[in-house]
């Protein structure tokens, strides 16, 4: 009897709906990673600045995201900011905003780490051959730094994909929400539905995140020397 529960996954449009939910999740993650990476590169450059004040503000910005859980940030923007500004924001938009800002903070730290790990003589040689500030970054520092930050950046992407599972808490119809709807619909006919549906979602997340974390580990090992 229990073995038949798995059929709940293949009835009607169940799989298709779960897939659509997954696309919503993946879409939020993808857009946030892109925006977060761009902002993060800017953030990382700012953090190598000599100005104490700039450094302090950037550090504070990062710590604020590190100390307060992301779910709390989702709530602050979804309930607090919308309330304060008297605007309406969809859960999806809130999710992209929060994940992008968080991504920027963490990415900034990775970029800073990569830039600071570059040997000093690279900067000095660049300056010696007369490169401008932008030329120095464009041709000398960034190409080398990318190598050092890529494993960390991929790891961050995995974390962001995993964290997108939280968007269900602010009313986004993501893969978890679709799963809940399917379970509720079939709860009487198939009591074991929740086992199969959550099991499938578990595997889906694994299928997305596992190759990413493997890739990151591989690159790290490859570029270690």
């Amino acid at each position, binding site marked *: 009897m229990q073995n038949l529960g798995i059929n709940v996954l293949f009835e009607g449009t169940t799989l298709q709906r779960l897939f659509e939910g997954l696309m919503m999740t993946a879409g939020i993650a993808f857009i946030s990673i892109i925006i977060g990476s761009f902002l993060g590169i800017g953030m990382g450059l700012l953090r190598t600045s000599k100005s104490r004040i700039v450094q302090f503000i950037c550090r504070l910005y990062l710590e604020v995201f590190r100390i307060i859980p992301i779910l709390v940030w989702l709530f*602050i923007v979804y309930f607090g900011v919308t309330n304060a500004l008297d605007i309406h924001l969809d859960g999806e938009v809130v999710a992209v905003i929060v994940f992008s800002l968080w991504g920027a903070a963490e990415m900034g730290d990775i970029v800073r780490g990569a830039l600071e790990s570059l040997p000093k003589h690279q900067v000095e040689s660049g300056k010696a051959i007369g490169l401008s500030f932008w030329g120095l970054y464009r041709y000398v520092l960034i190409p080398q730094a990318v190598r050092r930050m890529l494993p960390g950046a991929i790891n961050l992407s995995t974390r962001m994909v*995993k964290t997108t599972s939280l968007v269900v808490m602010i009313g986004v119809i993501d893969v978890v929400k679709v799963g809940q709807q399917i379970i509720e619909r079939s709860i009487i006919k198939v009591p074991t539905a*929740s086992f199969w549906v*959550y099991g499938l979602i578990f595997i889906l997340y*694994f299928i997305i995140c596992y190759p990413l974390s493997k890739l990151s580990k591989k690159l790290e090992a490859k570029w270690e020397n």
Partner: protein
Amino acid sequence: MDINWQFIISTLPLYQKAAWITIKLGFWGTLLSLVIGLVCSIILYFRIKVLKELVEIYVELSRNTPLLIQLFFLYFGLTKLGITMSETTCAIIGLAFLGGSYMSEAFRSGIEAVSKTQIESGLSIGLSQMQLIRYVILPQAFAVTMPSLAANCIFLFKETSIVGAIAIAELMHVTQDVIGMYYQTFESLFMLVAAYLIIILPLSFLLTWLERKVRYAEFGN
């Protein structure tokens, strides 16, 4: 924006109770994670057959899936197969399942950082494998790995915010309730952030202090 202090004072006991639940969950989650992580890393170190493969599968599964899904699977999925447990047990198991793999990775990299000469010297003065682990490897690995253990500990305390999803009245859940019941959004969110700061900031200072304390083993490196 007027802050309703009256409201804040009236919900203070509610938040206090929730904060204790958050601390309790974080504490047990971290403790169990440390135990699981230590056992897993020792299994990996000795390359015990079968168990080693199981640990590797566990680490990959746990690190590459979100806590929310792990909790839902434990709480809603397994109950349907006849395995029932209370919300709190489920939350702690979920946190330990997630944290165990992070701690295991941290311990593993710490153990790898212990230099070969240390192990060989230990063996040459006639220590048994268990003594070697207890007196030579773990003290050194612990010092090296302390920063990652501390980061994982903070991470787990923050992850407790997610267990509210399975009906545990921790900070996040209480905030959701209070916003839903009284529409005092600012005050509730203010209390929520304040509570997390009160829990996590001292914890973070304590861990930094601990990190400095255990550096003794770093010498010679």
